């Protein structure tokens, strides 16, 4: 019997734009710590592998490529790394994977922020580096411009990716710098040698000396190596360029298949990207998760009716880059176990409405999977890498 990994993607009041108007939503609390702490605690009670926390440098928008002026949907958000840190002491096992942009933020700052989250969470940090694709976001910084996607561009994932290719190349450099900085302290750099008066052995602290076309970073990090050594890097990918990015930079990739045939096609593309990147999967595994938006209720009719109500409130039918599943937890369990053998290590479920669909995952889907022998009954590891069966990498700078 195969088991699978499960994550949830937390976003505002859920992934349905009208979710904040659902009867059990807590829209006035989206900017308070208690809201996030409760959600993550619920995910941990379900023994999920990790939660992801969305973030962006601009306000949410119904349009992919530019801001809008709507006031009928959630607008506004908190820094995801800080939210993750705020909930870290209140949880003990679940992985915490915030999103950060890597287009405008200094690589050094991001790298030490994620390393610090790993220290604060005692080895449970991940990171989802994301490019800032909206040209308007660049105006928040005023340092550079980024490509403005046209209305035509956004009709195709491939066209988006092609236009944003330079940003992905730069993002790969940012991840490379972060990884070098995370390794720049060997594990045993701190020696506290009273005889010589030395706190550290400086032979175990390394310059990273990164020189890229857009930036350079000297190093070493100011933050000692974190519990996981390398926090888990995860990325979302919909097209060839982001598959290449994942193949180069990520430990885990989220993809968005519509059905099994689409899943096979996507996984084959990921395989090709891995080969092109010359990545040795035995040495550096790449976990594959499929993303699904989920609306879950005791009966399919209830789930459909709830979706209809939300669609009506939103004034439009729910649309997503990911497949939308509307039905019962048992039917979702069937789907996950169907798709799992196609080559997925696990799934990231995006609850359409919070806390409703999260609770359906932790309280109905998880027990259902467990009944079928497909999900853990207790955490056996304490780190995020541990949950996923990934080992703790040795610093690249360590002399063996």
């Amino acid at each position: 019997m195969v088991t699978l990994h499960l994550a949830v993607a937390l976003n505002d009041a859920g992934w349905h734009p009208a979710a904040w108007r659902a009867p059990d939503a807590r829209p006035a609390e989206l900017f308070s710590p208690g809201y996030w702490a409760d959600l993550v605690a619920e995910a941990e009670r379900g023994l999920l592998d990790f939660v992801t926390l969305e973030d962006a440098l601009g306000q949410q928008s119904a349009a992919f490529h530019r801001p809008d002026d709507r006031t009928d949907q959630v607008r506004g958000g908190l820094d995801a790394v800080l939210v993750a840190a705020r909930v870290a002491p209140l949880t003990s096992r679940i992985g915490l994977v915030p999103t950060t942009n890597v287009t405008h933020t200094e690589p050094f700052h991001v790298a030490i922020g994620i390393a610090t989250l790993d220290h604060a969470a005692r080895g449970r940090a991940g990171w989802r580096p994301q490019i800032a694709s909206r040209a308007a976001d660049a105006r928040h910084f005023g340092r550079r411009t980024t490509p403005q996607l046209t209305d035509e561009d956004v009709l195709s994932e491939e066209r988006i990716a092609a236009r944003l290719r330079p940003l992905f190349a730069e993002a790969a450099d940012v991840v490379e710098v972060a990884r070098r900085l995370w390794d720049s302290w060997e594990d045993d750099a701190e020696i506290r040698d009273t005889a010589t008066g030395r706190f550290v052995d400086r032979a175990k602290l390394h310059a990273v000396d990164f020189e890229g076309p857009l930036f350079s970073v000297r190093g070493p990090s100011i933050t000692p190596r974190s519990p996981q050594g390398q926090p888990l890097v995860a990325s979302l990918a919909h097209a060839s360029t982001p598959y290449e990015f994942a193949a180069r930079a990520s430990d885990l990739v989220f993809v968005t298949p519509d059905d099994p045939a689409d899943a096979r096609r996507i996984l084959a593309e990921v395989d090709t990207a891995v080969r092109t990147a010359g990545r040795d999967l035995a040495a550096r595994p790449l976990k594959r998760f499929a993303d699904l938006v989920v609306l879950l209720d005791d009966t399919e009719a209830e789930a459909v009716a709830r979706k209809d109500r939300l669609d009506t409130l939103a004034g439009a039918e729910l649309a997503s880059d990911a497949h939308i599943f509307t039905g019962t937890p048992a039917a979702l369990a069937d789907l996950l176990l169907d798709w799992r053998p196609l080559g997925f290590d696990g799934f990231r479920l995006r609850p359409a409405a919070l806390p409703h669909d999260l609770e359906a995952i932790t309280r109905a889907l998880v027990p259902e999977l467990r009944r079928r022998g497909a999900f853990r009954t207790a955490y056996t590891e304490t780190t995020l890498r541990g949950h996923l069966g990934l080992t703790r990498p040795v610093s690249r700078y360590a002399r063996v």
Partner: protein
Amino acid sequence: MKQVHLAVQLPAIHNVTVWSDPRSESQISIDSFIRLAQAAERGKFDFFFLAEGLRLREHKGEVYDLDVVGRPENLTVLAALAAVTDRLGLAGTVNATFNEPYEVARRLASLDLLSGGRAAWNVVTSYDAFTGENFRRGGFLDEADRYTRAAEFLRTARELWDSWAEGDVLADAASGHFVREGAGRFAHRGRHFDIEGRFTTPRGPQGHPVVIQAGESDAGREFAASDADVIFSKYSRLEEARPFYADVKSRLAKYGRTHGQLKIMPTATAIVADTDEEAVAYADEITRAQVSPQTAIAHLEGVWGRDLSGYDPDGPLPDVDPEPESLVLKGHSVFRKGREETARRWRKLADERGLSIRELMIEVHGGQTFVGSPRTVADAIDHYVQSDGADGFVLVPHLTPGGLDEVVDRVVPLLQEKGVFREEYTGTTLREHLGLGAPTSPEETS
């Protein structure tokens, strides 16, 4: 009677921490931060402070290895501490030279929301090209420009915090209005920043996080007088502190501000034992651990600008002259400028008093602010504040994480008895602890 304000700093990277003491635990484990922060909250302190340094210091071209090395990204740690404390203010340094206002304003507003109104930002301007090598833009900023950038940076951050008004989050499910129209819209056009768009983060409970400044130059003092809520200093001797206090407070009037609107808090150490004699002996022992023979030589090299490893720390000062142009200690602001003059002063002091290298370094770089029995220390802190040397202190314990316990358990009750320190928090936000009013809109200075 003036009320005393107290804060604690978890020390990193300078020689305050006696890491060789068996009671000294991890400088990086979250447990250490939690333990110290909870001690401070038990003592009803105003805030917990974490400094920042963005490049490891170097000594003769290699990482400086004698002091504690390594620290976390401070706002991330402070967000975690918000979960395990209730009232304690959470202050972190964020450099205005190696950051952008949009991002810093966003992170601080987030911290303020995540902590229920306890965030503070120490705006510093350290600018050297050495640190700049870790950043996209490098260390381009001219010394003269760093405070103009910092002032505009802060002004811009305040515009961003003001881009959401209180009550802009409507969250009205019945009517379907989540935000008020235009929430977060901003545009700033200035010399250093030309930006516009929509800010993501609603206004935090404090409106604006508390703003701290820690520069000493004339420009730094002016910046504090016009724009900060708290100023740090290193003047921990009363005779140096009083002129600094008078000078900084005298600058407030021209910005239409009153004395109470800027709190002056020097960093200080407090060594407490049962009796004054025991405390003096303990302080001496701590100071000798802080200024080891190796540290004494390294600091001397910092000023002399040359290799002095051949000299005996217990012997006299070197007979060679300093090389004021060469920098053997990089990333230490103390050794940045005025080194020829420092060397002259040190030589004179050593000659007059017949001090060895290490004794001299203990004299100039060691030393504790408050030493004595709990009663002596409480009286000294109170006297210092009442005689306008400070409004309070940032205590820097020499042990991590247990180094604040003696002060909390034995000194704080005596200050409370005197009626100069709170017995309970009366407010929930850091602004309230510091007796600061609601934020004023940014002054059009410069």
